[in-house]
């Protein structure tokens, strides 16, 4: 009987697990029985050094790290799946979870030290500030002026349609939560977004789910440029392999700065451990020195470019584009711009 029950439970778990589209998963066993379950949108490659460092300070704690897409993460927390800490790059989805009561309040000296813009009501906390950048292939841009603004980019793309046809990559905003966030915020902030989308749409753009794959394709020459890529991934990639082809360009007219946020779900069990992890993340995020940082920090006061535009604001306005009607309208406009055959 007991075995049958166990079997049912296991199979149910298996169904649940299968229902969730897991991109990556790794378990770091600790010497004790306590396990901190983290669900995150951050790739293991970027995040693992930090996890290892955290575990080194508490060897007893096991860490279970699951990588999913931001939409998947949103759904998992909404469905009440058991995680102790949720880290997401999709600020809007994360904010909606907190707004709708899926987050547990947490307060410590570290969270108190956070600047106001980096937290909302002791529920969600930003631990990195990552700008959206453009990554280009130097070879494919050979002989062309490097665009510094969107207007430059529009001009370059429009003047060289043959060179860029099928070689422009960007997020598929229908799939990617982060891509949708970048696109909506950019559309709100700059009218150049729609003109740029129109121009890209004529060039048969390649649509991606994730920054990493876009960077891969640029690095390998399949793409001439990837638009709206996470700067942190690109930098990490450049740091990892010396690729002379890859080049990061920051737009001078305007750039979205995304805050990677953490929250402790309302149904978390290892709350104290999640809090400790959160504190460690925030401490890392608030460090000034760039030296051995695993994650891009929240503030780069030494970086003048950071001063020209602030990060996307954590607030109820983020929910505006999550409204189904707004989303439908935005996606319609986006599809019209991107898919003109």
């Amino acid at each position: 009987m007991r075995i049958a029950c166990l079997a049912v439970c296991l199979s149910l778990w298996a169904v649940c697990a299968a229902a969730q589209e897991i991109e990556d998963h790794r378990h770091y066993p600790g010497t004790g029985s306590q396990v901190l379950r983290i669900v995150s949108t951050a790739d293991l490659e970027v995040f693992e050094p930090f996890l290892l460092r955290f575990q080194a300070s508490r060897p007893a704690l096991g860490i279970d790290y699951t990588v999913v897409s931001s939409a998947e993460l949103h759904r998992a927390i909404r469905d009440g799946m058991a995680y102790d800490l949720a880290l997401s790059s999709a600020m809007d989805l994360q904010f909606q979870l907190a707004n709708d009561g899926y987050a547990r309040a947490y307060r410590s000296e570290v969270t108190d030290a956070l600047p106001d813009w980096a937290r909302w009501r002791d529920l969600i906390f930003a631990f990195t500030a990552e700008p959206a950048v453009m990554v280009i292939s130097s070879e494919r841009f050979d002989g062309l002026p490097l665009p510094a603004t969107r207007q430059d980019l529009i001009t370059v793309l429009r003047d060289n349609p043959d060179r860029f046809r099928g070689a422009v990559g960007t997020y598929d905003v229908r799939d990617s939560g982060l891509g949708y966030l970048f696109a909506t915020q950019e559309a709100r902030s700059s009218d150049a977004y729609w003109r740029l989308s129109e121009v890209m749409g004529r060039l048969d753009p390649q649509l991606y789910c994730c920054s990493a794959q876009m960077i891969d394709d640029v690095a390998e020459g399949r793409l001439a440029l990837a638009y709206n890529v996470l700067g942190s991934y690109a930098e990490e990639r450049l740091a990892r392999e010396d690729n002379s082809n890859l080049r990061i360009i920051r737009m001078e007219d305007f750039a979205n700065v995304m805050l990677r946020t953490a929250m402790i779900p309302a149904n978390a069990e290892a709350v104290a451990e999640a809090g400790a992890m959160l504190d460690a993340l925030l401490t890392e995020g608030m460090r000034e020195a760039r030296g051995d940082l695993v994650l891009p920090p929240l503030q780069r006061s030494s970086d003048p470019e950071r001063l020209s535009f602030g990060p996307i604001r954590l607030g109820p306005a983020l929910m505006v584009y999550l409204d189904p009607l707004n989303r439908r309208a935005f996606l319609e406009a986006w599809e019209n711009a991107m898919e003109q055959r």
Partner: protein
Amino acid sequence: MSGTGSIGRRLTLLLAGVAALLSVLSWGMVTSFALQAAERTQDNILAASATIIAETLRTEQGEVRLELPYAAFSMLGAVSEDAVYYRVMAGDDMLTGYEDLTGGRQPDLPGQVVFDTIEYRGASLRMASITRLVLAGTQPQPVTVSVAQTRNGIGTIAGDLSQTAAIMSVAFFVLAVALSAFAARTSLRPLTDFAQAVSRRGPSDLRPLRREAPAELAPLMTSLNRLMDRLGQSIRRSEDFIAEAAHRVRTPLATVRAQAEIVLHSTESEDEKHRLRKMIRAVDESSRSAGQLLDHATVAYRAENLARDQVDLADLAATVADALRPTASMKDIEIELTTESALVLGDPVLLENALRNVLDNAVKYSADETTIALRVASDGIESVITVCDQGPGLGDGPVDHLTERFRRGGNVEGIVGSGLGLTIASDVLTAHSGRLDLHSQEEGPGACVSLVLPSA
């Protein structure tokens, strides 16, 4: 004193109590106003947000369409960190938003904004709803936009303001207590002054108080003055009585003395002569005492309305010395007079009385065949008459007591005296703003008595 406590403290405590009450009241009012203001602010923002959303409603091919304006939510986020919920209903169908955000007052008329407080997901929400008629197809369809927000922000604002108000109330209270203490002390100052004025007075000063007294103290002052008047009258009556008694005793005594002298001269018996002399001496003493009592009464009477005549102490000393020389010569005592002109203002009768009593004392306590030095000196500020004898001195006891009534020195046994002499002198000098100094001779036996008076 301990039973009724201090008026000042009571007044202070009372005023402090009132201040505390007012502080608490004002704090409560500010807190409630702050909460109301915060609530109204939130209502206004919610109304603005709902209105903006309602304004963006439009129809496309007979279908109600809505694109939530960014500002509608960003303005909610700008004011406070409150969770936001919304719902847009077209007729009975939900257009968008949170399906379970139900309840709350719904507007009756299009364009009207209504507010309500509802419970949702375990929190208290403030909700603003507005209805707009949108033409869908041929029929106008009512569309209701509801925007709700948790109330943590207004709690925080009201809490902050309440805390500020509390700090200000405490400061106000402390200030009020300090001012109360000051006010109590200031308003009680006339009373203190009054008490000081009474206690500063000399023991025999029974003049009525003539002061500017506040209305509350006037009855007390009147009563006190009346009491002092009665007391003064009573003292005056008893002094009159003493004077009268002394006078009446002295006249028959003079008769007795005269008769005794006649008998003394006519008798032959030594034994009888001896007895008669003793009798005459006793009669003299009684007469002298009665005289002193009379003097004392005179001093008490005249000191009340002191004359301010110019008196030369040198003349005075000469007169008194002459008057006492016969008595002194009976004991072979020489009075050595050294004078310089020393003018003072005062009652010549009283001054003479005083000096006579002092000199009389000196003669009485001096041994036979001695000298009494009587000196008058003036340094322009003070004029002094000093009487120095070669008698037994002042004894070892405290010198100040010797001027008390009927008090006599510790070494006067065997000498008849009333103990009034120095009292009279001292009273006279006090009435003239002067003083009586008693001290022993620096060299040799004897005492010196100085009558010190301010110079004219």
